[in-house]
Structures are given as C-alpha cells and as structure tokens.
C-alpha cells in the first residue's frame, strides 16, 4: 500500500503496550496503534471490523482503578492507556450431539455445571465489548430459559473476555453457542414452505424451466431478464 501525504497532522499520545511505552498518533484504534508501533500481528487480529472477537484487549487508564475490556479494532487509544492483548482464552468446549440433546436447562447445566457457581457479580457484563447483558444470560440459563439465552447472546462474538474474568469460572460463550443451536434447531418454529420447496426441487418440478434457460443464448436471456417482474418493496 502506498504512503500518502496525510492532510491533517496528528497529535501524538503515549500508550503502554504490554508495559512498554510507545508514541502513536491520537485517533488510531488500538490495533492500528500496535501496527504503527511496529508490531506485525499474527495472533490478536482477525476481521478488523468487530465481528470475530480475535482482538480482545484489556486495559487501564491513568488514575482509574477499573480494568476495561474491549476489542482492539474498535477502540480508540487514549493518552496513558495501559494495555495487553488477549488473543486466546483457555476454555474447555464440551462436545455434544445436537440430535441427542434436549432443548432445556438440563442440557446446559449438565454440560456446563459451573453455571450454578454464578454469584451475580456482573463482571462478565462489564467485560463485554458488545455490551450484552451477560449476567442476565447466565441467569436465564440457570432458569432453563433457552430461548432467552439465545435472544440475549445473539450478538456475542465469542471474544472470551467474560470467560477469562469470571470468578466462578464459567465458560460463557460455549454455553451461548449451545443454547443458540438448541433454539434454532428445536424451539424456533419450522419454515414449512422451505421444506415443501426442497421436496419440489427433489421431485424435479423446476427441471424443465431450468433446462430451457440453460439452452438460451445471451441475448435471449437478456430479454427475459429485462422483462422480469420485480416484487414491490
């Protein structure tokens, strides 16, 4: 990628990357600050857009006792920020056979009994970069409300920050993935029209139409394309 004249001269701030001080332009995300400082990252980078949870980061700010947690690709650096990347969370994932488990609380609790250790300290919620109500999801799991767990955790990107900070040692994101699949496979209503259509295709209902289209020339296809009926909004 070429270098360009930057139109606006950036002011510089100090960030402490795993203990070491670096001067970086203000306004950069933590991820870009790391790269500016010379790190070529292998771990701790993924989509760079806030979807994959690869760049989980914990940091502190001067004069503030709190430990903050967020995504490096979505967080702007602040002067004096003291940070560490957490590119991996140790959390055992317990395998299961979707076809053999029930969509109920007992499935969540039998695979992840640590859930019952929750002391409602809310640390998980405070650590979530997606601002999900994580503790409420744990509570819903304890109550066996699988649908609620699926709803509350849909936007979870499995970054692992809640899991690594939880004093009760609950592996949250593994529970959420299980709950969501249970919901999607068992509790959500089935799409009947979809099953019918799959059946129709298997029976060859559209074969003749497609055969015909395959034989048309580009010009004939173009004419058909122009004459398409567009479904209104």
């Amino acid at each position: 990628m070429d270098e360009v004249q930057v139109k606006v001269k950036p002011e510089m701030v100090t960030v402490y990357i795993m203990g070491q001080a670096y001067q970086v332009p203000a306004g950069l995300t933590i991820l870009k600050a790391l790269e500016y400082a010379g790190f070529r990252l292998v771990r701790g980078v993924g989509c760079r857009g806030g979807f994959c949870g690869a760049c989980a980061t914990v940091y502190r700010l001067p004069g503030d006792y709190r430990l903050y947690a967020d995504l490096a690709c979505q967080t702007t650096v602040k002067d004096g920020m003291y940070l560490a990347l957490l590119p991996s969370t140790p959390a055992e994932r317990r395998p299961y056979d979707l076809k053999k488990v029930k969509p109920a609380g007992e499935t969540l609790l039998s695979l992840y009994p640590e859930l019952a250790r929750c002391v409602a300290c809310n640390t998980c919620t405070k650590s979530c970069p997606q601002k999900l109500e994580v503790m409420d999801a744990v509570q819903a799991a304890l109550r066996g409300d699988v649908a609620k767990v699926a709803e509350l955790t849909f936007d979870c990107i499995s970054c692992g920050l809640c899991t690594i900070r939880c004093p009760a040692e609950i592996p949250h994101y593994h529970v959420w993935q299980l709950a969501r699949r249970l919901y999607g496979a068992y509790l959500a209503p089935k799409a009947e029209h979809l099953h019918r259509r799959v059946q129709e295709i298997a029976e060859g209902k559209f074969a003749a139409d497609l055969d015909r289209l395959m034989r048309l020339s580009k010009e004939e296809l173009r004419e058909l394309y122009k004459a398409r009926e567009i479904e209104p909004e």
Partner: protein
Amino acid sequence: MANQPNAITPHSSPITYFPGCALKDQAKEYEKATLSALAKLGYAVRELPRWNCCGTVYSQTQDDLMRHVGPVRNFIRAQELGETRLLTLCAMCYNTLSRSALFVQNPENLRRINAFMDDEEDYRGGVRVVHLAQFLLEEIGEEKLSQAVVKPLSGLRLGAYYGCTLLRPKEVAVDHPDRPEVLERIIASLGAEPVIFPERTECCGAYLTVTRPDIVRERVGEILLSAGRAGAQALLTSCPLCKFNLEERRPLGAPKIPVFYLGEALAWALGVKEIPAELAKSLTGVMR
C-alpha cells in the same frame, strides 16, 4: 349451600415476589399453585424485576463475601421499587437471602459489598425476606385464612416436613428450631389434620443426592418411616430439593408417601386447584 367465603378485599399494593431458579423450571407447579392461591386471597403479586439466582448451590459451601453479592443485588432491585418486603416460596432461597440480609446488617459488611458493586446504587438496608408460611400467618392470620377456605381439607392427614432451611441457623428460623408449629397451624387452618412426626425437622441430605445418594436414601428412609408411623397420608414441604429427595430417593421398605408443596395445599383449600384423586378420597367433609 352457603359456600361464599368472606369477601376478600383486594389489596392495593402488590407483593414483590422472588421466585428463585427452581420455581421457574423443576418446581413450576409450586409457583403456579401459590400465585393462584394468593390471587384468590386478594393479593396481587409482582415478580422482582431482573432478579438473579440467590446462589444457594455453591454459596452454602463458601465462607466469603462474594456469595452475598447475588442476594444483595436482589435487595437493590427491591429497593429500586421502594419495596421493603420480599416474598419467597422456596425454603432454600428464603434461607440464603435471609442470611445475606443478616450479614449486611453489619455496616462494615454492607459498605464492602456496596463498594464492590460499583455498577449499582448502594443498598441502604431494610429489605425483609419473608417466607410464604410467615406471610400467611402474619399478614393474613389463621382466622382469615380459615374463612377463605372453600374446600376444607377435613379428614386429610398432612405432615409438614420442615427440613433444615426454614429453621437453621436460628437467626433466620421461621419458628422454634426443634418445636416449630407454623406449618401445622396453616395446615389446621386449611381444615386438614396436621401430623407431627419426630423426623420432620431432620435434614434429608440435600445436595448429597448427587455424590452420595446412599446417605440421602438412608435419611429419606428414616423420615418416611417416621411420617408413616405417625399416620401421614401426604407430606407438605416448601423446598424443591427436599421434594426431589423424598420422592426419588425412597429406599425399599420405606412407605411411599406423596409429597406436595405448601402452596399446592393452599390452592386445594381455596378451590383454585383440584386436590389429587388419591388424597381426595380421604376427605370426610361435605366438599369432597
């Protein structure tokens, strides 16, 4: 026939109710029966918003501050409503929440818990945890309760199984730890014949049911034998775990005595739930 109970004046402010995890899952019938019974008695009940688990499963094994965070968070939820009383049905929730309420009566403990929970307003104290049994006797009273009964359970011999958590430690006990009588008084108000048996305040074994079911079986055997010898036709409890143990851990040789929730008996007598057929045939009263 003259069956109109005294008209119950509907109460204006709802009772705030803490369900606890079991009542939403394995013990749904306890909640359903009790809420309809309370409605019949003229009480509107609102569930505590965003309540969290009291933590009883592990908190009872730990001696640290953290286990009080969950209960206190529930007290803050109540405080936000301006509520000073929290109704519980589950005996274990009652016990866990009460012990935390006691714990934070000490100002230093309260200060430390509040300091940790920097995401909530400070708990100022003052929420009282009330068990269903206390509510029925203190708020309604035996006389009014009897008058509200539509289908007296006459002829039915019911034993109250207290277990541990309603009575120990004594600081949170709903009655005398060795000679309690609150549940018997309620049973009598419902028209039934309370059966006292020596093992009614002995522990069923609780969570040992997971790791040492043999111990639980032994305990349950003693409890059921004791209840059977005293002539109980059914047992009443307010703890989902006790109910599980008494039903699922009965050893061979011990009598099979059905176990119901306190709220269910209440619901039968108030006419909002059908009394199970096996017990109905013992009724000697007019309303059979």
